[in-house]
């Protein structure tokens, strides 16, 4: 395991060009141990959270006898909280330069919530508080974690690093429900056992994080003596043209989407699928995502991250077109799930690899939080818009509208996205 010491870390101001980078070993470069460790943390943590997500409906309705009304009502309120929490987490990590601590506290909070769910019993306020805290934990940790990946990895390997991380993340997400149902099969209707096992996995993730991911002792992202990034300085990232363009593109592309939920809903309706198989559709996409994340990440490193990012959205456009076409049955399912998984593999980690280098290291987490939030808000609004369009004009019209919108934004994105990632070491931010 070695720590990649890439180019000299830039201070938050104009930087000298031509900083020498250390000689790279020829041939395949090994991936940083830190990135693998972060991947392992995500894998284990996702097992923990997906376990609970998979059985939560069963638990609440059958185990506790609640009506869906009682918690669905409050569940929707928390979607907006995530955006704010993500930005707060990113900024806190930057300000204190303690990415590992902020990410770790997010992981720890989510882990504790599993016990909270157990102790909450049938009390609706307690349950929704536990679920809300879980969501806060999730929001707080994503930006610092992605910043850690980008800071502990040579810029040229960012695509592969994020690809590896996302692949391990998705593996955990796929294993989670299997573990949950294994527990339920072994101990019939013992939802408390599911929560305890989930807690154990979550705790393991936190331990891996603190054991194997370097914290404050590693090379600090800012030169000693300079002030910590204030909120104002983070917001000044908007003045960096490259960052601004990437953020706007990501938000617009998010807005032109449809939302995963609706995508699967349209697919279900086209396939006339038995309700029992609904949960298996996202698994199909996840499997494709898992397989393609690393290859596409590597490709992003070789040919530039812009191309896979745009092509990924072309794949999404392909999904809409296929759903519209007369293709039916198995070919339809396979095409949609493969294209959808490829879309995620080509865009999710690649966006972070695209945006990372244009943000100075001492504002990395905040910058990534902004990117994730922009995309997230765009997608949220897109979901609402698509739902409205469906209700007003019907499924086919809404889908056609989405396809046209995505096509238009793609054309725009090709112009908007900077030609290649403009690293801060090469150009001054204006």
């Amino acid at each position: 395991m070695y720590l990649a010491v890439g180019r000299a870390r830039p201070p938050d101001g104009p930087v000298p060009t031509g900083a020498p980078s250390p000689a790279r070993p020829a041939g395949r470069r090994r991936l940083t141990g830190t990135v693998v460790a972060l991947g392992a943390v995500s894998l284990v943590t996702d097992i923990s959270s997906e376990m609970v997500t998979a059985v939560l409906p069963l638990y609440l309705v059958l185990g506790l006898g609640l009506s869906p009304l009682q918690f669905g009502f409050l569940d929707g309120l928390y979607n907006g909280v995530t955006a704010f929490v993500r930005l707060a987490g990113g900024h806190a990590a930057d300000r204190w330069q303690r990415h590992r601590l902020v990410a770790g506290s997010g992981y720890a909070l989510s882990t504790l919530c599993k016990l909270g769910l157990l102790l909450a019993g049938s009390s609706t306020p307690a349950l929704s508080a536990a679920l809300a805290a879980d969501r806060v934990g999730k929001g707080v940790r994503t930006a610092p974690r992605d910043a850690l990946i980008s800071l502990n990895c040579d810029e040229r390997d960012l695509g592969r690093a994020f690809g590896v991380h996302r692949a391990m993340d998705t593996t955990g997400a796929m294993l989670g429900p299997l573990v949950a149902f294994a527990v339920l099969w072994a101990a019939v209707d013992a939802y408390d056992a599911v929560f305890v096992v989930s807690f154990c996995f979550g705790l393991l993730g936190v331990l891996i994080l603190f054991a194997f991911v370097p914290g404050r002792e590693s090379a600090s992202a800012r030169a000693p003596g300079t002030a910590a990034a204030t909120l104002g300085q983070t917001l000044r990232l908007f003045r960096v043209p490259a960052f601004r363009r990437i953020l706007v593109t990501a938000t617009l592309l998010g807005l032109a989407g449809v939302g995963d939920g609706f995508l699967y809903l349209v697919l279900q309706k086209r396939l006339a699928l038995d309700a029992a198989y609904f949960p298996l559709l996202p698994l199909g996409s996840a499997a494709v995502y898992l397989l393609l994340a690393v290859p596409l990440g590597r490709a992003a490193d070789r040919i530039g991250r812009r191309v896979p990012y745009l092509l990924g959205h072309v794949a999404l456009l392909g999904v809409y077109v296929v759903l519209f076409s007369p293709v039916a049955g198995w070919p339809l399912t396979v095409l949609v799930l493969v294209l959808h998984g490829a879309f995620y593999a080509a865009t999710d980690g690649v966006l972070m690899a695209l945006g990372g280098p244009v943000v100075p290291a001492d504002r990395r987490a905040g910058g990534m939080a902004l990117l994730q939030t922009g995309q997230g808000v765009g997608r949220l609004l897109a979901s609402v818009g698509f739902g409205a369009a469906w209700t007003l004009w019907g499924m086919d019209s809404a889908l056609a509208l989405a396809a046209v919108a995505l096509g238009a934004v793609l054309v725009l994105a090709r112009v908007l996205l900077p030609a290649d990632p403009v690293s801060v070491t090469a150009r001054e931010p204006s």
Partner: protein
Amino acid sequence: MSLPPPSLRARITALTAATAVLAAVAVGYTVAAADGDGREPVSAAVPGLTLDQAPGLYHAARKGEVRSAPYSPSDGGKADGARSRDTGLSCDRFHASGRSAVCIARRPGPAQKAKVSVLDRELDTRRTVVVGGIPNRARVSPSGRMVAWTLFVSGDSYASSSFSTRSGILDTRTGYLIKNVETLQLYIEGRRYHAPDVNYWGITFADDDNRFYATVATKGKTYLVEGDMKTWKARTLRQNAECPSLSPDGTRIAFKKRVREGSQDPWRLHVLDLGTMRETPLAETRSVDDQAAWLDDSTLAYALPGRTRGTSDVWTVPAGTSATPPRLILNDASSPSMVQGGG
């Protein structure tokens, strides 16, 4: 941090130890929770036990086993839980009426599946239907010919905690199965209505095996609908009337009405007189989230959460304005239905 960070080897050792401890906790708790009473959903009745031989209050007891407790609504008092007989069935929902009974049992596994078993009076399985979802409601028509069910399905919308319902109807005489009643031609306040968010639940049949009542929800509003099997049409009767249950004499509908906004104690049981279309709140003032069952023409039974988490008790209340308070008739039970002896 003044100490040097521990070496890699030390960290690996510590983590391995921690993993072993956590694994032990996880496995140990799971094994302890498997208290040996892992009842597989079985739908084979105890040989020889029939509905005629064991009349009384049929119910699903704590672990889902269906039992028959001696009980008479007119006598008053509690159902005799101690002398109840086990049918051998294990169901999440059960209902017996006329010449049939229905048992819905969840099947374990990642795919949310449930098995709907239609039984005859000898409690032999006549037909099984595998459906997707979590069992919610089950009803048999008064004659026993029509069987209806509702399941919760998650996955219609991406938020994993939001549900929609899937209701199905089986005609046991013709064998005709409707897996999803959302194909009904719905008329809201006289106008033909289409929407993708339509959900039906709580179907109850009249004794002509053609007319039925149910709840439909769309765009945040719930309606009581009256449906017709032959024409496959449904029209709304009134708003805010959920989980209807038709009385044995066919003149009144018991339902739960939303009386409070929010998620705390939202429901109140009412009875609608179909002749006068007047609603009467019942003496049960607590929030009842159940499709009430008519034990006879003047008594309703329903389940309320019990003292221990995850259990419920069966209560009865007179079906009309009466000074008589609700009465607890059976602990640790749900899905009540009254079966008379004889044919």
